């Protein structure tokens, strides 16, 4: 102990201690990243698949994760997953994002080939717990209001939260969050309308 006491006073000991501490901890982190990496990736893929199937209530017979196209969208590239039945695209699923109260609100949007919404699920957000997080289906039924709507019904100018003269409810104390979701879904439908031919991939593979 006495020798350790003497050693601890040296400047070199302190530098070495910091170096060893940094080395050991980053080593531990690297090992952990290696050990958990595949499991985390698998969980993320499982999550993606789950959020895809949640907004796709209908029938399809292909592997969604395999059938995707990447198209230029309103802000950056959009990866679109396509659900097929006997080779024909029956629905598409893609991510849309809006600016929420505390950062982007990312949703998964499912649209059938006529442009009707099959379902919307928020998959990532940082909104205020207890207020803005009512966009999660586990906490409120609000997100289910989208199903069946399209960019003609309700008319485009009423595709907004009630505060903006639209048909969708906002939450008490949180307008920005539902507005972000509604507007991002509206943008997604417009994107679908523009890219419809390419998304539906009309040359039928038989």
């Amino acid at each position, binding site marked *: 102990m006495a020798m*350790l006491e003497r050693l601890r006073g040296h400047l070199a000991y302190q530098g070495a*201690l910091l170096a060893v501490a940094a080395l050991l*901890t980053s080593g531990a982190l690297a090992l952990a990243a290696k050990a958990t990496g595949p499991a985390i990736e698998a*969980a993320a893929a499982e999550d993606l698949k789950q959020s895809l199937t949640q907004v796709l209530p209908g029938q399809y017979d292909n592997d969604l994760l395999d059938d995707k196209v990447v198209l230029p969208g309103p802000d950056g590239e959009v990866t679109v997953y396509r659900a097929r039945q006997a080779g024909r695209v029956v629905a598409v699923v893609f991510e849309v994002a809006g600016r929420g109260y505390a950062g982007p609100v990312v949703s998964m949007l499912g649209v059938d080939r006529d442009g009707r919404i099959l379902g919307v699920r928020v998959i990532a957000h940082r909104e*205020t717990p207890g207020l803005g997080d009512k966009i999660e289906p*586990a906490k409120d039924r609000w997100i289910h209001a989208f199903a069946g709507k399209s960019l003609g019904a309700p008319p485009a100018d009423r595709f907004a939260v009630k505060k903006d003269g639209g048909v969708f409810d906002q939450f008490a104390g949180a307008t920005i969050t539902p507005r972000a979701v509604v507007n991002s879904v509206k943008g997604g439908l417009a994107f679908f309308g523009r890219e419809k031919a390419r998304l539906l991939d009309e040359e039928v593979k038989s």
Partner: protein
Amino acid sequence: MTDYARITRDGLWDNNVVFAQMLALCPTLAVTGTASNGLGMGLASTAVLVVSNVVISAIRHLVSPEVRIPVYIVVIATLVTLVDMALNAWLHELYKVLGLFIALIVVNCAILGRAESFAARNAVLPSALDGLMMGLGFTAALVVLGGVREVLGSGTLFAQAHLLLGEAFAFLELTVIPGYKGYLMMILPPGGFLALGFLLAGKRVLDRRRAERAARLATAPAVA
């Protein structure tokens, strides 16, 4: 000889992280909109606190006082990241609920506080107990604060507890005030400060009453 009863009392009441040391107020106010959130944050912090106290107590003879703070911070940040990765990989469902809170644990100064004031000076076993008791005291404070804010703010108690604890605990979810319209301020940060202020005042009153009673009991025989 370390007094384990003293450590337990200190952690749970006398030296409670929130109500006495007034540490970790940032995560405290941020997550206590509901009792369930408070519980999740409290349990995750407790786990990190126990492990960090054990590790820091184990290396306390090696760490020189001049560089102890960076070493502790690196150790704590690593532990939090490890917990974050492990939960994400192997307890993914729980991670989806707690994920938000885990990153916040790094900024919980109570963990560095316990490392500095207890684990760096005591043996491993008392340090582990200190971490556990401080963590449980912190958890209790968060649940009480979250409960008060939740009842006043939205009229429920332990809403969505099943997301955190599993379906078996769905019975915890109570609607305290049926048909309550909600009192938004209690859920927003100002409500957190208000509730915390009243709870702090309440604890002071209780402590003073107890001290007065103890003083009366001590002097009574002398007068008689």
